[in-house]
């Protein structure tokens, strides 16, 4: 089908998109098109695999669908029913969910810091939570790739974690951001200005640069802010991937051999009629984020997996993490006008690492935030429930307020969960998720200290009074990756321990979360998993379950996971990724082509039937580099 989606004022995505028939098994069916799914679709299509990505929402046309209006932007969010509870119940919808092509990246603030090396080793270093089965070094090359491909603006020297620089120059900070910088400087706290934030300080392909409109959180009408909608999905389509919108997955069926056979979903047709379809696939990658991913797995029950697909560990839906996201704001005598400029523009990671002087482990970042009027009113309401003249007058000070977001590391706890509600159903009739979330002592201490620090920074910048509301941002951790089938849901490559041709690749695989906004890490993981799949699929890795590294062999020694596909190819993989960048991502995809070859999947050569609607009009123009074939 021919697309008709505007991505920026001068970029109409009008590619001919390949369409697959549901009954023909594609190589990969991906569920979700956000930070994980968008990159997976692009990489796997580039590698010559046939790809269908199911998206529950629709396209976001920058002119038609995005508006500079808080109350009018509900279509960006996951608004279907979810139930929330626990001692500190999380709010859902709005800022911590996404719906439509690009997922949450369409409306994120676009802060894109990396995790620190220590974030991968908190069990070893701090005796809490778990270590990751991969290290910072494993992910570092993919961070670099994603920073170029999104791309990300920031300082040439970023001093925290593993020091590094950014490909685009720092963004200009508005007055609100300058208050964070001013306060940190006054207190001798190291701070960086102008990033890391995925708003390129310059033109990228058909994407103009930022106009300082300030509505980043409601979708970028300019197309300047990076999202997978503008950074990776157009290329995915040009390379032959199908993005199938308005498709709500409800079950991943298992075949007799214990492999997944595809994805069942409800598809809403233009006009509103709803049909049920099943996309057949050689392999399925779930990338629905930390709530929908466990929900889908838990709803996919079978004789083999009565407690949910790939859940022999019982860990699907456990260790739900939100990031602490208290908002602290101060009133300044002078005008600030916080609504101008991107809210994401300056940060300090000076307090992210464990500090013996604290009464808690791990830490928090300080970041600029800039609530628009409704968000500000909600903060004031939440602070102390004030109403009437007190509320209206506080809001009249809107232009005198500057805010800081404390982004802190809440540790994973088994008691924070996603389960399936026994009776409630959403509008599709699908059982809904029930989240339970509570803070624990380390979390509370970290948040209190972070809030106090942010108050001090604002005061040092000249605020005459400060206010704070404990809030939360980002959701990760409900299908964690780990070392063994007993301690995790997926292995180091994001592959299910239980089902050989099922992967999970989104925020839910994060074992811990650090104090970094998760989008870049999720995309980096997706790029890494894609590189692995490129080699692992021809080698037959998805035809057998991952070996349990704790299993004991006949000689009494531990059996190591077969090397074959794992770990060996970092440099090779880097070269391939670098080529992707140079081949197209920095420039528009005009004139690029659909790859014509099919790829050997496991042991069988796949043949793809094209549907009758798409076969005409597709002209191969440029082949995928042959070394990838």
């Amino acid at each position: 089908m021919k697309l008709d989606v505007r991505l920026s004022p001068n970029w109409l995505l009008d590619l001919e998109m390949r369409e697959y028939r549901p009954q023909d098994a594609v190589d990969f069916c991906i569920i979700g098109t956000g930070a994980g799914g968008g990159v997976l679709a692009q990489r796997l299509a580039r590698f010559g695999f046939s790809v269908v990505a199911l998206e529950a929402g629709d396209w976001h046309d920058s002119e038609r669908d995005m508006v500079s209006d808080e109350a009018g932007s509900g279509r960006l969010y996951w608004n279907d029913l979810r139930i929330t509870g626990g001692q500190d119940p999380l709010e859902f919808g709005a800022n911590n969910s996404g719906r439509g092509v690009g997922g949450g990246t369409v409306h994120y603030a676009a802060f894109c810091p990396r995790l620190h090396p220590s974030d991968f080793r908190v069990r070893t270093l701090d005796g809490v939570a778990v270590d990751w089965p991969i290290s910072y070094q494993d992910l570092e090359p993919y961070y670099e790739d994603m920073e170029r491909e999104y791309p990300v603006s920031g300082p040439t020297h970023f001093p925290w974690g593993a020091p590094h620089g950014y490909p685009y120059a720092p963004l200009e900070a508005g007055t609100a951001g300058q208050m964070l910088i001013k306060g940190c400087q006054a207190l001798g706290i190291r701070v960086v200005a102008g990033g890391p934030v995925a708003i390129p300080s310059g033109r990228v392909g058909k994407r103009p640069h930022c106009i300082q409109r300030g509505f980043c959180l409601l979708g970028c009408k300019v197309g300047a802010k990076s999202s997978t909608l503008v950074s990776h999905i157009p290329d995915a389509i040009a390379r032959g991937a199908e993005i199938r919108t308005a498709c709500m997955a409800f079950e991943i069926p298992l075949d007799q051999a214990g492999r997944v056979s595809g994805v069942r979903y409800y598809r809403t047709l233009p006009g509103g009629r709803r049909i049920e379809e099943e996309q057949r696939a050689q392999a399925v990658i779930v990338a629905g984020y930390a709530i929908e991913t466990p929900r889908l797995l838990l709803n996919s029950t079978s004789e083999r997996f009565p407690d949910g697909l790939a859940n022999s560990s019982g860990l699907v839906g456990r260790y739900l993490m939100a990031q602490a996201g208290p908002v602290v704001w101060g009133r300044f005598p002078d005008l600030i006008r916080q609504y101008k400029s991107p809210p994401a523009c300056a940060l300090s990671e000076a307090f992210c690492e464990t500090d013996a002087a604290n009464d808690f482990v791990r830490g928090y970042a300080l970041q600029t935030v800039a609530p628009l009027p409704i968000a500000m009113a909600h903060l004031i309401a939440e602070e102390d429930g004030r109403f009437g003249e007190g509320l209206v007058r506080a809001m009249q000070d809107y232009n005198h307020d500057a805010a800081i977001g404390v982004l802190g590391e809440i540790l994973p706890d088994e008691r924070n969960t996603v389960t399936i509600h026994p009776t409630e159903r959403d509008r599709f009739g699908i059982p809904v998720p029930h989240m339970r979330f509570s803070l624990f002592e380390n979390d509370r201490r970290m948040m209190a200290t972070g809030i106090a620090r942010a108050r001090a920074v604002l005061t040092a910048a000249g605020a005459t009074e400060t206010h704070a509301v404990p809030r939360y941002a980002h959701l990760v951790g409900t299908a964690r990756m780990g070392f063994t089938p007993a301690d995790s849901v997926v292995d180091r490559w994001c592959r299910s321990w239980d089902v050989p041709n099922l992967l999970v690749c989104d925020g839910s695989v994060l074992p811990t979360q650090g104090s970094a906004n998760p989008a870049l890490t999720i995309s980096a993981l997706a790029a890494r998993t894609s590189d692995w799949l490129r080699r692992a699929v021809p080698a037959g890795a998805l035809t057998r379950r991952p070996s349990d590294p704790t299993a004991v062999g006949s000689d009494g020694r531990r059996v190591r996971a077969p090397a074959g596909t794992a770990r060996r190819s970092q440099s090779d993989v880097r070269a391939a990724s670098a080529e992707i960048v140079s081949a197209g991502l920095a420039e528009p995809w005009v004139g690029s082509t659909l790859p014509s070859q099919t790829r050997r999947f496991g042991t069988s050569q796949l043949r793809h039937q094209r549907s009758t609607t798409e076969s005409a009009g597709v002209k191969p123009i440029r082949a995928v580099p042959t070394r990838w074939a």
Partner: protein
Amino acid sequence: MISDRYPDADVLEQRGHWDDATRQVVLDRVHNVPSFHYFDAQARETLEALCARIIPQDHRPAARRVPIAPWIDDRCASDTGVGFRFDDMPDDATAWTLGLAGLDETAQAVAGARFSLLPPDRQDLVLEAIRQGDPPGDVWRRRVPARRWWIQVALKQISGVYYAHPSAWDEIGFGGPAYPRGYAALNFGAREHWEATEVPDSPPAISGGAAPGAVPS
């Protein structure tokens, strides 16, 4: 008394500079206020009275007050989801129906009359009891946690409707939509030539903020 901090503000005057989609959404909100079709007459009166105490608009001429209650009613009728429900709360529309009944119940207990019939200062006493989280009344004891209802349902939804309106933007000096032209005056709170000038009033009347200087050890 609420003063007019930005007397020249008229953000709607800029609508010719907005993109079509944004202009349509905002103007639709201004000009096409829905009629009531969900709440019964008594609940409607209670809701109107509640809105008037949470966002007092006495300082505006009646014709220029921002309608709030009709949007709450419309939202209850259309059952548009917001993405979640607390597990100790009923669905949104039911929470409104019960909460408004609870408001009248508490008003009877505290002041001896339905909420909408009380003078403003007595209404505020009732709301203060709900804000504190332990108001008298069967609804609050058995059906709806008062504090949760106050923050999540009453305050956030009513303020959400109000601060979506251009008249409220004028009141706080918000520049509003800025696509495609963008913002240019970025530093030190500078004003675009088309933005309103602030006329400072008496010192800020905010209370409840922390004293400056609380530094973590």
